[in-house]
């Protein structure tokens, strides 16, 4: 088979591509579509750097074939900011200096945004459990957790 033709939606835009069976959604995003915001850390679903949403549900794009995106709605880090206006999670990560090398950051942003859409007022413990699948080897997590709590408060209007 020469390739699989896939029609999908990414960040609200209709997208078509041809991929091999073995290619993951992450491979397609990065290598075929030039969307390099999603990062490959472990390629085995452990680190969360490749987090995207599929039909609104948080998932690792390394654990999904490109072919599986047929007919789905994919959300990536590239769709989080509105033009130059950052999402509150992004802004609070900057304000809290909650990143160093930045490789894990897109995954944290996508995951935290998904949490706040489901639960606008999470406890610190809930945030920590929700983000347990996002690994950061630089910051020690505390600043990231604080950034998410700040973003949640801002989005609630406090």
């Amino acid at each position, binding site marked *: *088979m020469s390739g*699989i033709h896939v029609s999908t939606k990414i960040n609200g835009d209709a997208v078509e591509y041809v991929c*091999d*069976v*073995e290619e*993951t959604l992450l491979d397609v995003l990065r290598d075929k579509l030039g969307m390099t915001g999603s990062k490959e850390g472990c*390629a*085995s*679903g*452990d680190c*969360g750097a490749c*987090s995207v949403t*599929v039909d609104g*549900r*948080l*998932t*690792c794009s*390394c*654990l*999904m*074939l490109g*072919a*599986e995106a*047929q007919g789905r709605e994919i959300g990536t880090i590239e769709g989080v900011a509105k033009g130059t206006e950052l999402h509150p999670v992004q802004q609070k990560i900057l304000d809290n200096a909650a990143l160093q090398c930045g490789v894990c950051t897109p995954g944290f942003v996508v*995951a935290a945004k*998904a*949490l706040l859409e489901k639960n606008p007022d999470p406890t610190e413990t809930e945030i920590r*459990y*929700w*983000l*347990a*699948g*996002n690994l950061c080897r630089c910051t020690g997590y505390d600043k990231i957790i604080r950034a998410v709590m700040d973003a949640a408060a801002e989005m609630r209007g406090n």
Partner: protein
Amino acid sequence: MRYESPQTVEAASALLAGEEGLARVLAGGTDLLVQMRSGMVEPDLIVDVKNIPAMTSITEENGGYRIGAAVPSAEMNEHEGLCALWPGVMEGADLIGSTQVQGRATMVGNLCNCGPAADSVPGMVAANAIATIIGPNGRRDVPVIDIPVAPGKSTLAKGELVESVFLPARPKRAGDAYLRFIPRTEMDIAVVGVGVSLELDDDGICTDARVGLGAVAIKVLLVEDAAKALIGSKLDDASLKKMAAATSAACKPINDKRGTIEFRTKVAGVLATRAAKIALERANTRASNGGEK
């Protein structure tokens, strides 16, 4: 490598049956993609079952629930009815991996991968969940306990796949729970896992019990002697002690860096006791709410 995404279970079965090489079912993919990536398996055919309505839905059936084999754990744990009726099964599934993995991983994938430490399986075994299997010879219903044989090896024949799992209705004073031991607080593989399901009469006497035990043998076990120790009792200390001893006696664990044989054997009894107490509390709460929650 071929990728197919059929619309019916029968078509999926026909594809699996007709493949001469290695065929793999793709539901959540959280095991399959990792196995492919590491070179453990190189399938000639991948059958994605997520476009099959019967495999992607949760439906009420005779007071119980039928859960499609491709329903991810996150979706089950958002289902109020399921969480109210079988909280122990749901909490077992909820322990598998991260939020991201939860969004894809399925209980049936966990079951058919046949890992002894699969967190969702002891709870299903305790619940006497029934798997509906579709294959070249039609449909058959099999208790979940009869599916795994050994790591990576199941009793499914060529061309067969699990379409759904059925969790039955239960009397109003009934409850279940799953507990596991891991050295960390999250994102780890069970060293021991125990699921307990109880049914009690209006006087609080246990009329039925099932104990599922994971990570201490080549496959998940149903510990009948542990259940027998509870049936007819009010879960007094003596019965619980007997149940714990029976659970420990059933263990045939390996020795590895995550737990010694002695440790796993002892912890199995401790967790079984604690899970039984939680199941009892849930049964009583549910009964006092008239069979709801």
